C-alpha cells in the first residue's frame, strides 16, 4: 500500500503550502468580512459554485413514475451543468407550499401546478411560452384542456406535463354474479346495479372528503350530467341553484344510501384504492393506479379466492345523466417561479424534460395512469402493449372538461375548487340536508366568489 504523502491536498495539482495559504486567506476573509471577504480573497467556497435546481411535485400514485424522475435528475444535471433535485410532497399540501413559497419569495424553482392553478398564482409565475410553444408545435399540439389551465391572458404560465385520467374501476366477476356483463351507462342503471351489490356486502366506494382528486372528479361530472353548472358561460353569473343540480343531489342521496359505502364522506384519494385492493368495494371512480398497482404487486394484492386481483379489474367511463356523459381529468403542468434566481436554467430543464427520449421514459413508467400532454403520445408503441382495461386512456384526454365549466377556468374557479364547494354541496346532502337547501347553500358560497 502506498504511504500517504503529507504534502498532498484534496485538490490535485495544489501543494500543501499553496492550499494552506489560499484556504487560510478564504477562511480568514470569511470570518472577518463574510461575503465581501470571500470576494476579496478571489475564490468562492466550493459549495457555492454548483447551481441547484429544485423541483417540487406531488407524490405520484404510480411510485415508479417518481423513481424514474429521480433517476433522470443526475442525467439532467449533467446535461445542464447543475444539480437537479426533485422533492415529492403530498398532493394535498402542494397549494400550501406554493403560497408559502410565493409569500416568502423563496423556495423551489419549479413547482408542479395541478388543475388551473396557474390562474390563481399568475402574478408569481413567469411566461414560459418560449418553452411551451415549440413543444406543442413539434408534438401535434397540447390537448385543448391546457389552453384553459396553463395559458393565462394568451401566455403560457406553465408547461403542460401530463393528464391523469379517471374511469370507474370495477370488479368484473362480482358484476357478472348479478348478471351484469357490461358496466352501466347511466346513473340510474348504476344505482340499480350498486344496490344489488351493496345488498351482497359489496358496495360502490366513492370519496367525498376534502381531497384534491377523486371527490371533485366525481362531483363535477355528476353535476354536469344532470345539466347543472357553477356559472353561465360568462363565468360571472352563478347558476348552480337549478333543477339539474337539485335532481343530481336527489339522485346522489338515493345512490349514496342504497348503493355506496357511506364511510366515503371521510375518504381522501387513497382510501378507495385501499378499499378496492382489500376487496371491500365493487366499484370506484379512480385513476388507473388501482389496476396498475394491483398488477405490479400481484403477489400481495389478491382477491377473496387468492388469485391476483388485477385479473378481475375492468374499467368503464363514468355513467351519464339526462344532460350527457362527462369526465373531468386532472391536468398538471410545471411553472417557473418569478422569485427563482435560476429562471433560464429552469426553462432549459423543462426543455430537457420534454425532449422525446427523456419524456418517453417517464411516460412509459406511468403505463397510462398519466398520459402525455401532447397528442403525439397517442401514437406511441406503448399503447399496443398495455392491457385492455388501460387502452381506453389512449385518446380520452381529448374529451375532458375542467373546473369553471360552463364559464372559463379562471382563478375564481380554482377558489371554488379549493374551498370544496361542489364536493361539500353533495356531502351536505349526503349528511341529511335537503337537496334544495344544499343547492341554495352552494349558491350562496359561489356568489361570494364569482359575483363579489
Amino acid at each position: 500500500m502506498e504511504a500517504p504523502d503529507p504534502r498532498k491536498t484534496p485538490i490535485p495539482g495544489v501543494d500543501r503550502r499553496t492550499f494552506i495559504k489560499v484556504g487560510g486567506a478564504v477562511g480568514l476573509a470569511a470570518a472577518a468580512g463574510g461575503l465581501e471577504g470571500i470576494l476579496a480573497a478571489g475564490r468562492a467556497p466550493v459549495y457555492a459554485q454548483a447551481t441547484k435546481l429544485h423541483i417540487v411535485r406531488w407524490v405520484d400514485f404510480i411510485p415508479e413514475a417518481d423513481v424514474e424522475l429521480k433517476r433522470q435528475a443526475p442525467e439532467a444535471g449533467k446535461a445542464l451543468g447543475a444539480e437537479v433535485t426533485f422533492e415529492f410532497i403530498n398532493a394535498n399540501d402542494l397549494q400550501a407550499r406554493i403560497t408559502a413559497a410565493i409569500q416568502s419569495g423563496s423556495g423551489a424553482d419549479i413547482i408542479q401546478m395541478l388543475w388551473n392553478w396557474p390562474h390563481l398564482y399568475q402574478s408569481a409565475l413567469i411566461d414560459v411560452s418560449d418553452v411551451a410553444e415549440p413543444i406543442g408545435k413539434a408534438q401535434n399540439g397540447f390537448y385543448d384542456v391546457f389552453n384553459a389551465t396553463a395559458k393565462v391572458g394568451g401566455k403560457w404560465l406553465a408547461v403542460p406535463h401530463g393528464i391523469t385520467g379517471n374511469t370507474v374501476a370495477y370488479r368484473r366477476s362480482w358484476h357478472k354474479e348479478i348478471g351484469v356483463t357490461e358496466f352501466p351507462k347511466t346513473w340510474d342503471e348504476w344505482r340499480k346495479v350498486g344496490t344489488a351489490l351493496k345488498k351482497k356486502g359489496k358496495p360502490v366506494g366513492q370519496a367525498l372528503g376534502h381531497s384534491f382528486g377523486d371527490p371533485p372528479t366525481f362531483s363535477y361530472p355528476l353535476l354536469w350530467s344532470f345539466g347543472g353548472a357553477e356559472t353561465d358561460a360568462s363565468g360571472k353569473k352563478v347558476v348552480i341553484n337549478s333543477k339539474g343540480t337539485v335532481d343530481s343531489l336527489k339522485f346522489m342521496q338515493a345512490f349514496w344510501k342504497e348503493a355506496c359505502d357511506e364511510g366515503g364522506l371521510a375518504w381522501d384519494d387513497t382510501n378507495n384504492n385501499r378499499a378496492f385492493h382489500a376487496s371491500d368495494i365493487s366499484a370506484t371512480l379512480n385513476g388507473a393506479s388501482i389496476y396498475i398497482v394491483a398488477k405490479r404487486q400481484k403477489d400481495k394484492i389478491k382477491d377473496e379466492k387468492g388469485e391476483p386481483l388485477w385479473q378481475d379489474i375492468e374499467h368503464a367511463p363514468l355513467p351519464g345523466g339526462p344532460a350527457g356523459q362527462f369526465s373531468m381529468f386532472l391536468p398538471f403542468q410545471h411553472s417557473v417561479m418569478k422569485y427563482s434566481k435560476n429562471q433560464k436554467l429552469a426553462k432549459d430543464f423543462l426543455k430537457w424534460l420534454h425532449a422525446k427520449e427523456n419524456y418517453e421514459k417517464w411516460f412509459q413508467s406511468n403505463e397510462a395512469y398519466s398520459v402525455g400532454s401532447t397528442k403525439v403520445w397517442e401514437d406511441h408503441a406503448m399503447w399496443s402493449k398495455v392491457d385492455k382495461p388501460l387502452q381506453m386512456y389512449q385518446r380520452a384526454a381529448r374529451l375532458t372538461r375542467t373546473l369553471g365549466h360552463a364559464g372559463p377556468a379562471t382563478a375564481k374557479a380554482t377558489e371554488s375548487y379549493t374551498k370544496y364547494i361542489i364536493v361539500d354541496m353533495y356531502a351536505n346532502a349526503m349528511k341529511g340536508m335537503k337537496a334544495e337547501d344544499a343547492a341554495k347553500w352552494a349558491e350562496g358560497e359561489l356568489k361570494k366568489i364569482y359575483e363579489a
Partner: protein
Amino acid sequence: MEVALPHPGASQRQPLARFLENERLLAFVLLTPAVVLLGVFIAYPFVMGVWLSLSSTRVGNPGHFVGLKNFLKAWDDSIFQMAFRNTFFYTFWATIFKLSLGMWLALLLNRHFRGKRIVRASMLLPFIFPTVLSTFAWRWMFDPTFSVLNWTLYQAGLITTKVPWLSDSAYALWCAIVINTWRGMPFFAITLLAGLQTINPDLHEAASLDGANAWRRFRHVTWPLLKPVTIVVVVFSVIQTFSDFQLIYVLTGGGPANSTHLVATYAYQIGVATGLLGEGAAISLFMLPVLFFVVWIQLRYLRRLEGA
C-alpha cells in the same frame, strides 16, 4: 512595609463599574435581547397579521386596505359560523375531560405504590409523542373501512354495522375531542401532581383526625390549595385547545362537509390553501378577543385568590 499600589487596570475599569452601577442603563442592556426577540418573533407577526386582516391581500398580490370587510365577510360565512361553534364545543368538552381525568390521574399517582415512577414516566408518552404521528395512528383506528375499533367491536358482537367514526359529523368531532383529551390529559395530570405534592401532609392528617372522609378532605383541603395551579393549567389548555390545528388537519381535514373545521383549520384553508391571505388572517384573528377574555377572567380570578 507593603504599600498597596493602584492596580494598573483600575482606572480603566471605573467607567465600566459606573455603567454597571447605573440600574436604568443596566436594565436597558439586559432587557434589550428579550425585547428584540419578542419584537421579531411575536410583535412583528402579530402586527403583520392585523394588517393582512384589514387588507385584500391574496397570494402574490399585496392588496390594499379594506377596513373590516374581511371580518364582516367571515361573520356572514356559514362555514366560519360552524367552525366558530365547533371551536367552542371542542374546547369546552376537551378541557372538561382533560381536567377531570387529569385530576383523577394526579390523585392516583400521588399515592404510594410499586412501579410509581415507571407509571408516571409512561403517562407522559401521549404528550411527548408528535401530534401528527399520534393523530395518524388514531386516524387509522377510526378509519372508515379498516377501523381496528370497529373490527374489535364487531368481533365482540357489540355492533353489526360499521360505526361511522369519521364520516358522520356528530361522531367525527367527538373523535377529535377524545384524541385531544388523550393527548392533553398528561399535562394536566403532571402539573396537578406537582401541585398536590406541595400540599403539606399535616393538613390531611389534621383533617383526618377531625373525622373528615376522603371526599371532605379533597373538598376542603386539597381543592382550595390546588385551585391556583388548576387555573393556570386550564388557562394554558384553553389557549392551546382553542387554537388547535394539527389534530383536525390530520384527522379529518375539516370534513365531512366542513363539520369538523375549527377556526384555525378554516383560516388555514382560506388563507394558505386558497391564497386569500387577508380573509384567512381575519378568520384567525377572531380567536384573539375570545382568548383574551378567557385569560383575563381567569387571571383576574387567580389574582383574587392570591390576595385572599
